[in-house]
């Protein structure tokens, strides 16, 4: 038999690591423990630990359980000793044995759980899957999915203006002469018709719209001022295609009509547009320009983000990217839209979306955008 005090204290300390309040109780109880009996309990628990450590399967653990706390188990037998003890020791020794039994039960249950888990895990291993074999690495064609980059950037543009209270609308691609030209102050023999190469239909009255500015007329027809809307959409030019020219591209039109609208308001929204799009303040330059449907007409250029004004192919070596044509709506255009220019004024702008997109992603050839080639589209995948 080993030293009871040390043995019990050791055991108590072990428990105390988890339950500090037990420490006192155990230490006090040893004062009254009969030396010979305590030594026995202590060694039984040690023996149990050793036996459990050697039992790895469920039946082995259950066998150990029977050997110690079963009916004739070693701890149960200790209880039988009780009756031979003097009454003054009966109580304290009984408590000790019960305590040892609880401890034994805990140890056995813990070991049993480990054994069960080990068995289940062993069974599960047979049914495991290879977590490396994910869909993305498996052959089976193109797996990516996503929005076309032009559509994504249009969505961003729309959102910027939706948050500022602008409606979003579109009109037909096949427009009549009135909506595409006449109503926009471009009469049939106006030289400005040369500014855009137009696809005509055989009736000589209908065109593929050359700009989204027709949406201004469509918008005015169905609204009463004050109003504000944007019009994103496809436009068409009768131009030979090359790396920087397309016969179809996207424009983003904007129009706001209210009382006393000025150039200062236009510049405000242009700055909002640029800084929301590029997430920081962008340097802009405003200069006069000519579009028949605005007066005054201007262009709001953005400092090139690719080259920091040093000159590169994106900005045509000018350091500035021409993205936005704008101006106050021409009085004749307002009149054509059923609005009294003496009472209301407004601004309008148009933005070339393809160019913006190409600058953002460093796309060198505009023809990729409408090629239908998924090697291009999949680079902009969402999932």
């Amino acid at each position, binding site marked *: 038999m080993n030293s009871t005090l040390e043995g019990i204290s050791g055991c108590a300390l072990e428990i105390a690591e988890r339950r500090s309040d037990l420490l006192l109780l155990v230490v006090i109880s040893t004062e009254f423990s009969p030396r010979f009996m305590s030594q026995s309990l202590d060694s039984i628990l040690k023996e149990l630990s050793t036996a459990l450590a050697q039992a790895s399967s469920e039946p082995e653990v259950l066998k150990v359980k029977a050997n110690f706390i079963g009916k004739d188990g070693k701890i149960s037998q200790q209880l039988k000793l009780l009756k031979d003890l003097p009454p003054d020791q009966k109580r304290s020794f009984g408590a000790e044995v019960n305590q040892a039994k609880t401890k034994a039960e805990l140890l056995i249950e813990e070991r049993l759980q480990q054994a069960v888990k080990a068995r289940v895990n062993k069974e599960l291993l047979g049914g495991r899957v290879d977590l490396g074999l994910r869909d993305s690495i498996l*052959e*089976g*064609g193109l*797996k990516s*999915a*996503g*929005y*076309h980059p032009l*559509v994504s950037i249009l969505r961003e543009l729309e959102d910027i203006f*939706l948050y*500022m*209270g*602008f*409606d*979003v*609308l579109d009109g*037909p*691609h*096949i427009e*009549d002469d009135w909506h595409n030209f006449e109503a926009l102050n471009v*009469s*049939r023999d106006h*030289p400005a018709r040369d*500014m855009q190469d137009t*696809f*005509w*239909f*055989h009736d000589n*009255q*209908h065109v*593929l719209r050359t700009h989204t500015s027709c949406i201004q007329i469509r918008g005015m027809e169905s609204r009463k001022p004050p109003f504000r809307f944007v019009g994103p959409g*496809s436009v*068409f030019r*009768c131009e*030979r*295609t090359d790396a920087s020219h397309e*016969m*179809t591209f996207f424009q983003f039109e904007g129009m*706001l009509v209210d009382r006393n609208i000025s*150039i*200062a*308001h236009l*510049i*405000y929204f242009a700055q909002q547009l640029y800084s929301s799009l590029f997430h920081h303040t962008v340097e802009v330059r*405003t*200069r*006069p*320009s*000519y579009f*028949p449907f605005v*007066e*005054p*007409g201007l*262009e709001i250029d953005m400092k090139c983000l690719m080259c920091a004004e040093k000159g590169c192919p994106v900005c045509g070596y000018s350091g500035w990217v021409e993205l936005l044509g704008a101006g*106050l709506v021409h009085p004749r255009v307002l009149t054509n839209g059923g609005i009294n220019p003496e009472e209301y*004024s407004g601004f309008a702008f148009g933005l070339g979306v393809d160019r913006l997109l190409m600058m953002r992603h460093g796309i060198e050839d505009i023809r990729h955008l409408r090629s*239908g080639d*998924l090697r291009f*589209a999949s680079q902009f995948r*969402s999932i």
Partner: protein
Amino acid sequence: MRISLSWLSDFVALNDTSPEGLAKLFTSTTAEVEDVLRPEAHLQHCLVVEVRTLRPHPQNRDLQVAEVDAGPAGKFQVVCGAPNVRSGMKCAYAPAGVVLPAGPVEAKDIQGERSSGFLASQQELGVGSDHSGVWELPAAARMGQSVRDILGDEHVVIEFDNKSLTHRPDLWGHLGVGRELAAILRRPFKDLYAESWQSKWQEKLPPHRGPIQVSLDGPSSCVCYYGLSIDNVKVAPSPLWMQRRLIAAGLRPINNLVDIGNYVMLEVGGPVHMFDRSQIRANKIVVRRLSQPSELPLLDGTTAQLVPGDTVVCDAQGPLVVGGIIGGLSSGIQPDTQSVFIEAANWLPSEIRKLSTRLGVRTDSSARFEKGLDPSRVIITVLRAAELTLEICPGAVVSGSLEYAGPPENAFPLRQIRTSTQRIEAALGREIAENQIVDILTRLGFTVKADRSALLVTVPSFRGTRDFEFDADIAEEVGRIIGYDNIAPKAPAGVISPLAPSTGLRVHRLIRDVMVLHGRSLEVTTYPMIGEDLLNRAEWKRAAQELELANPISRDRDRMRPSLIPSLLDVCALNHKHYSAFRAFEIGRSYFADPKHFSREETHLGCLFCDEKADKTVALLDTIEALFRRLKVPIRFDNGTSGGLIPSEWSGLYPDQVMSLWSGDSEVGVVARIHPMLLRNFKISAHVSIAVVNVTAVEELYLSDPIRYQPLARFPLSEIDLTVLAGRDQSISQVIEVVRSLSLAELQRLSVLSVYELNDHEKSVTLRLTFGSKEGTLSGEELNALSQRVITKLSAAGHPLKQ
């Protein structure tokens, strides 16, 4: 439009303003300058040399070897072939390394003789048109001096973007640009051809009528017409200074008389036509509309097909000139021309544009007239042309007074616009002092009368022809000179009312989200224009009337597509080369001819699943079904199609593998597996399925109704499984439809547990019917009765219970 700065300095002192600085200034206040060019930069490096010795080239009889002396710059040996080289002459030497208009000069051995550069002609140096020999320089020229120093100046050119000058006909000549620049720079404008100059000239002209009678015969596109006859001219090269200016402005020198016309146009902006007077029959010029068709051979070598109504300049016998556009071949300047008739006129812009477009003839003249030139300045054009002719042709004399046909001179009234400081401030969005406004407008040539609260602005004649009618036009003049960058951005006052995004926008976004996240497909954008070849490959039935373009770029894109399907098949063929399986979708438009509105457009969703290994039609149907659930548009599936989105007889349909989607009475979508034989036309060997949804129709159906909650079942549900027989090729949906047609209120759910093929013609289908009631637990009898009704109905429909 190319403007030479040294020419420009005739009208305004440029001092030491740099060309780039000027370009920036113009861009920020007037119109976009595209480029600054230095076409004569090489002259700085070309040297005056004297030919010292000259000996025949030992190997080549056509060449000579010259020893030239460039003074302090040294002596050089050059090989030359020009016939006019002689020893002692001064000429221009282009040393190796200099870049001439035709390319860089290299030192090389020419058949054994070293040539360290070459002796250049005027044409090679880009200063004139002469290429008959080397350019002989004055004997007084100092050896080693640069050619640029001899010329005294260098033409530096700023090039305007022509489109940005569309509304500024006054800027289509150096004089107008000089006037504009003087106003911007606040420097004096040297108005060389002011009224004093005009009256001085008028006085100099002979008092008697000239040899040519001019008349306007009835209304035509001619606004007014000036003519002047000059005798005793001789055709020769024009002086070098004039040739250099023409070259700098982008024109090729021809001969003195033609060059004078072009020079005046580039200087004062008004086109001039020079007639060889001997070709004007019966000394009569009549401007009139043609009454009969006529052909006129033109100066450019083509022949104009003129029709009645076209305005022409005629002599006694017929048309000589297409007015304002181009001259006829016969009446132009000939090498032996001795007398000329100078025409300067003004024409209606819209008519010029119409006619030049119809004839397909675009000239410097028509480009200017169609923009609207100032009719009250035509007299300057004709007098300036006369002045230059007398200056350049020694011995030339004016024959007779200035001929004029047109309305009296005061028939071109100046436009007046009433505005106010407040209105200008309101348009620009900043405060501007009235005296600043008056100052800006006055500098630009406007006359301003301030009267209490209003400003009465008189528009100068040179600005009154185009784009000047409203006070917005005045605001623009003030705004651009102040500089738009000097206007502080301002948020508009006023109420922003909350705005619900339009149904169209919401629907399009929902569709895209479902197609990406559920359909796992990639969005594409394709051209809405397609060609006959693609339609043929898609075996797409041609519409009776197609929307064809009058001026397509190519046969591949010459008409509007009637469906997204041919485009999708094209996309499929392209990507099939790179991927064994892929999914793509597009939201795009289809176009239809419409008898009433010309055309009708529908927005469609097109989606394509392509897989080499397995057919994915069911997966596509799942996605489309999910899409409509997301859109909250209730639909039902139907076998076959009514032909609304895909023609029901389309050869591209796989037999019995097409389903249509219906909302009420309208077919809103169709999902189809594609026939392998059609795919062969596209060299596709894979399973392909396509869905098309009429998004335009869906936009109208979209309601975004809130979902109505149903109380959870309070009583237990009962499941009953029934196994019935069905034809092997029959669709499950037919069996399900039979049960649904009973409309049993207690049937909470109906699903398919399993399907087994029994033999060649039969299969078994196990259905699970889940019954329940809100009122209470269904009793055994009730359940029995319900299943009996289902069994009876199925049996009657040819689906007996499997024994």
